């Protein structure tokens, strides 16, 4: 498969945040990612689309080394180069915890800890050794504001996160991911468990967040990718089929396979 030409896809004024280079990944004997390459641009939204089992979530979970938690998973070649420091995130010398301190994640189903709203957001800061109460208060407040949740919860920060509605819980998880000032936030189908109204608010939030942070989002919803992303990558059977500027990819895909998928003839 051809490595997508980064410069061709890039737009004036964009900066590379990370590059996936010829990445191979195995679940045991199953070859889940096959020489995948793609760029991630700083403070833009990049969407990963493709049918179930195409490897989009697998690729996303490489970015914060989630695969390291389970035996049998293997990064077999290539890597993810992080800019500006040129670190290969997948290198065995790089501590996965260091990677997760820089890249945070929002999961498919809202997964708040069974703790208070405040403690849910503060947890990202506590693992970074922050103990000062005033500093914690400030950071929790700004993270909740950043996740557009502050107005709804400011007077009940001590309540359980699980008492919130599904959409609020997901924004709480976004606040938790945001609190530590990450360089990239990974979203793994963040709206698939939510109703349309909650979905709209999350999408709006993602669009706002890209002012400050780089976003990589997996979605099974092509309309969602078209609405909120700047760049889109279409994957199929573990391969990167096409990467491009979202508008161009959806209006005039370069590959027949991409066109078949986005027009609904396949997938």
């Amino acid at each position, binding site marked *: 498969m051809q490595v997508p030409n980064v410069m061709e896809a890039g737009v004036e004024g964009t900066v590379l945040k990370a590059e996936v280079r010829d990445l191979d990944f195995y679940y045991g004997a199953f070859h889940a990612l096959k020489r995948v390459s793609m760029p991630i641009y700083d403070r833009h939204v990049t969407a990963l689309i493709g049918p179930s089992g195409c490897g989009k979530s697998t690729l996303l979970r490489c970015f914060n080394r989630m695969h390291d*938690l389970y035996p049998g998973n293997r990064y077999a070649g290539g890597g993810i180069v992080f800019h500006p420091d040129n670190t290969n995130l997948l290198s065995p010398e790089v501590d996965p*915890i260091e990677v997760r301190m820089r890249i945070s994640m929002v999961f498919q*189903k809202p997964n708040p800890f069974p703790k208070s709203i405040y403690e849910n957001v503060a947890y990202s800061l506590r*693992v970074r050794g922050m103990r000062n109460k005033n500093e914690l208060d400030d950071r929790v407040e700004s993270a909740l504001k950043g996740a557009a949740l502050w107005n709804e919860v400011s007077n009940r920060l001590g309540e359980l996160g699980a008492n919130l509605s599904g959409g609020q819980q997901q924004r709480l998880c976004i606040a*938790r991911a945001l609190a530590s000032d990450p360089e990239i936030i990974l979203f793994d189908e963040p709206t698939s468990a939510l109703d349309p109204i909650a979905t709209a608010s999350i999408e709006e939030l993602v669009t706002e967040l890209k002012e400050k942070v780089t976003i990589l989002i997996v979605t099974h919803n092509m309309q969602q990718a078209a609405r909120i992303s700047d760049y889109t990558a279409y994957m199929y059977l573990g391969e990167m089929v096409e990467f491009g500027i979202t508008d161009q990819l959806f209006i005039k895909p370069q590959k027949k396979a991409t066109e078949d998928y986005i027009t609904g003839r396949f997938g």
Partner: protein
Amino acid sequence: MLQATDLNAIRAIITRAKRWDLFFSLLGILSLMIGILTFVVLFVDMAIQGVPRLSYEFFTSFPSRRAANAGILSAWVGTILVMLVTALSAVPLGVAAGVYLEEYAPKNWITDIIEINISNLAGIPSIVYGLLALGLFVYYFGFGQSILTAGLTLALLILPVIIVATRESIRAIPQAIHEASFACGATTWQTVRDHILPYSSAGILTGVIIGMARAIGETAPIITIGALTFIAFLPNAPFSGDPPAGLFDWIFAPFTVMPIQMFNWTSRPEAEFQVNAAAAGFVLVFMTLAMNGLAIWLRYRLRKNIKW
């Protein structure tokens, strides 16, 4: 065209099929009753015999040759102290082992063998633990026939129960919560301390209580290590014995426990001692039920914040 439905035929089929429901529910009630009624009959019989014997003196008297003067003071104090040693040694060991196996242990054949054998340990007859303890604690370590030896022996006995309960309650925590903690940048220890232990504590506690309820009634291993059946004194209270008296002198004291006291009384020919045994049995069952009640209450408290 739809055929005209023969409602009566359908109803006949349903009635016939439902006979099996009736049959099975009767069978189920019967099986349940065999279990429950047996316990109730035993317990009520024991209560009728024993409860009139319960008095303040019964709890504050030492055993005696005369049934009317005999009491269970040394037995219930011994039981509580032995249980204390058991809990303090088995809980940290069992929880630590369970957490290690779930969160830290590499998944390989050595771990597999250990896992299989922990379940096997739970099935070893308790008297075998008694023999092991006799050799190891009583003679090799020189702990003697003491509260410490008894507590550690029972701790070994219930360790597998606590390990298995710990692992099962850790596994009940959703993978998503586990991943969320790591995704925040937590280390394994931070994840264990801040999430795994707090969220699994209710389940671990249940396992601990089940184990303790088994241990409180164990007689065979305690007899094997040489517990005495006639103890007319209490272990020294902290700092009260011969100088240099310390906080933990009592752990080396000889002792007896409730089931041994009962066993001793039931083996006497006099009928009055049978009444004493029934009264002590009632107290022992009550202690076990109280422990279970405490566990249910604590579990409710601990699970209040957790919804999955």
